[in-house]
């Protein structure tokens, strides 16, 4: 209602009230002149007071509006200040620090004397934003806790690259970076995989943590296709050890740790790497449906070969894999198939005929895994899992006729040589204290190298 209209209405109402009040005592017709005059004066005074109140009200309203405006301005200023303020603590908002690591306990069931505990890896990362489009990432890793010439540990640069965003859909990276293969290699932090140790397919067939030096272009399209293509250093078969005195591994832990697999043994990790021979890779992933990931990747390139014996032909290493992961609700289902070949190995193998560890020409593996979150409370999460995997690091060999790829007799330690293939069941559970800290337990049963069957405990973290 318009305030100007209020006064006559209020005045009439008050007059009506006063009149009716008077009526309680006397007949309205019998009001004498003095009373009427008195009432008139009262009404006049009341209306004056009302006018004053109205003015005061107007002033109050104006004040109120001014205050509201001021408050809004302040809120806007606060928001601007919040927006402008560096939103990250620490040394510099452009610097990021992170880390991850894992501790294992492994207990081979048939030979408890070989039980081991290991700070398998402690990794710390440093990143820096040069500007909104250019970021540097690096990771430094200590394996097995102590690294020196007389210790088993290693200190490694795991990643060291610059990434520059070219457009919404494309970026270019250069340096030492992780290869986009399988489900694990680029996401190898212990909170990202089930089981105490990484699975065998993504350790022995796809090496992990697999990185190469070079350039790559990558990006994501709006329909959820991720792509990555590049040119990198490749493998060096000169690193191959044909003549281990003893089997390179006696336990499953050693199998994963001692770089016995074809690509594990020969990848160069940008350590004065041969760069005369370069490799190409391409990877495609579909992530357009929430909860689903499906992809494949291919890597191929000629490898470096040693000068002795002279005249060895170039050997080409090709690895391809396909993977899928589906996480409907509490379930987490995944599968990886990977297959690699090394061409023209015959001359090199024949030059080393009779040695216990020839170079394979084919290797492959696959796994199927299912996990289910059975309990979740206050950030805790318990997810049991089961995994079936098959791997064969030596599916085929081009070797001298009549020789065996794996020695048939006993090794120097008096035991048979382990076979480079197996079928493994893994049962276990990941127990997350929060998304960043995980306790793990599993039992692994090996069908061929049954001595490897083991029970493991693990602690992993990632921040």
């Amino acid at each position: 209602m318009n305030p100007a209209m209020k006064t006559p209405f209020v005045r009439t109402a008050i007059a009506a009230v006063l009149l009716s009040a008077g009526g309680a005592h006397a007949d309205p017709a019998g009001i004498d002149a003095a009373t009427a005059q008195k009432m008139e004066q009262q009404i006049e005074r009341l209306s004056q007071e009302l006018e004053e109140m109205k003015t005061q009200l107007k002033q109050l309203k104006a004040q109120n509006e001014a205050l509201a405006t001021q408050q809004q301005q302040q809120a806007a200023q606060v928001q601007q200040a919040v927006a402008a303020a560096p939103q990250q603590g620490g040394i510099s908002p452009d610097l990021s620090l992170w880390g991850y690591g894992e501790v294992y306990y492994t207990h081979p069931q048939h030979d408890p004397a070989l039980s081991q505990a290991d700070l398998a890896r402690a990794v710390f990362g440093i990143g820096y934003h040069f500007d909104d489009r250019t970021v540097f990432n690096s990771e430094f890793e200590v394996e097995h806790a102590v690294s020196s010439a007389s210790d088993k540990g290693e200190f490694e640069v795991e990643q060291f690259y610059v990434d520059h965003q070219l457009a919404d859909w494309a970026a270019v990276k250069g340096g030492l970076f992780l290869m986009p293969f399988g489900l694990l290699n680029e996401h190898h932090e212990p909170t990202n995989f089930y089981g105490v140790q990484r699975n065998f397919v993504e350790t022995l067939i796809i090496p992990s943590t697999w990185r190469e030096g070079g350039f790559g272009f990558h990006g994501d399209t709006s329909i959820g296709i991720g792509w990555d293509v590049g040119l990198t250093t490749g493998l060096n078969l000169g690193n191959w050890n044909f003549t281990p005195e003893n089997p390179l591994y006696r336990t499953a832990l050693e199998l994963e740790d001692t770089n016995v697999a074809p690509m594990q043994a020969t990848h160069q990790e940008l350590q004065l790497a041969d760069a005369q021979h370069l490799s190409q890779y391409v990877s495609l992933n579909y992530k357009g449906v929430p909860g689903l990931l499906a992809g494949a990747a291919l890597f191929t390139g000629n490898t470096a070969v040693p000068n002795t014996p002279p005249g060895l032909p170039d050997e080409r290493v090709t690895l391809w894999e396909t993977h899928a992961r589906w996480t409907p609700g509490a379930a987490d289902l995944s599968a990886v198939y990977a297959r690699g070949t090394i061409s023209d190995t015959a001359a090199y193998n024949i030059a080393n005929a009779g040695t216990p560890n020839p170079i394979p020409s084919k290797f492959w593996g696959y796994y199927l895994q299912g996990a289910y979150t059975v309990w979740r409370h206050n950030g805790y999460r318990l997810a049991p899992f089961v995994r079936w995997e098959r791997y064969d690091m030596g599916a085929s060999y081009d070797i001298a006729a009549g020789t065996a790829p794996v020695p048939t007799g006993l090794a120097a330690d008096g035991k048979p040589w382990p076979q480079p293939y197996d079928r493994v069941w893994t049962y276990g559970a990941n127990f997350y204290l929060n998304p960043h800290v995980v306790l793990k337990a599993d039992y692994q049963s090996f069908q061929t190298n049954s001595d490897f069957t083991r029970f493991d405990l693990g602690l992993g973290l990632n921040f």
Partner: protein
Amino acid sequence: MTPSSRLLLLPFAAVAVCAPAHAMVYLSVEEAQKLMFGDQALTPLPLSLSPQQVAAVEKDAGVKFFPGSLRAWKGADGYFFVDAVIGKHDLITYAVALGQDGKVRQVEILEYREAYGGDVRNPRWRKQFTGKQHGDPLHLGEDIQGISGATLSCEHVTDGIRRLLSVYDIAIRPR
């Protein structure tokens, strides 16, 4: 062409693709407001939560809440929020539009600073939040599906939206 000379060509190819360059800021706050509320006037909403309210938000959402990163505006038919969460290592800035009924209308990623894991920008992923309101579980792996390879980003944006809905319920919702 030898492999090494191919390698040398790569930087040139990079520069050639560089032309339509766009920063990793995908939307500005103003662009997101326009996208979500058109030409509606949005008035900044002062968020001065008492320590008790902050504690209530943390208890309700189950995640830490540092008031300061969250900003709010009120429009004629809803609310507009801008908030930031850590993705894997760096901040993700995102905007959320709520209807007057307190239900999520839209989620947009404004800024993503990391080289990888930017799949939270995927429209189908963000669409999972549409219609969600305070009281819904809003947990990754329950009513929100993650994206493999971007789990932490998905988890943290989900946590952020759950927290934002708690703030709305505790400090903003008209009663």
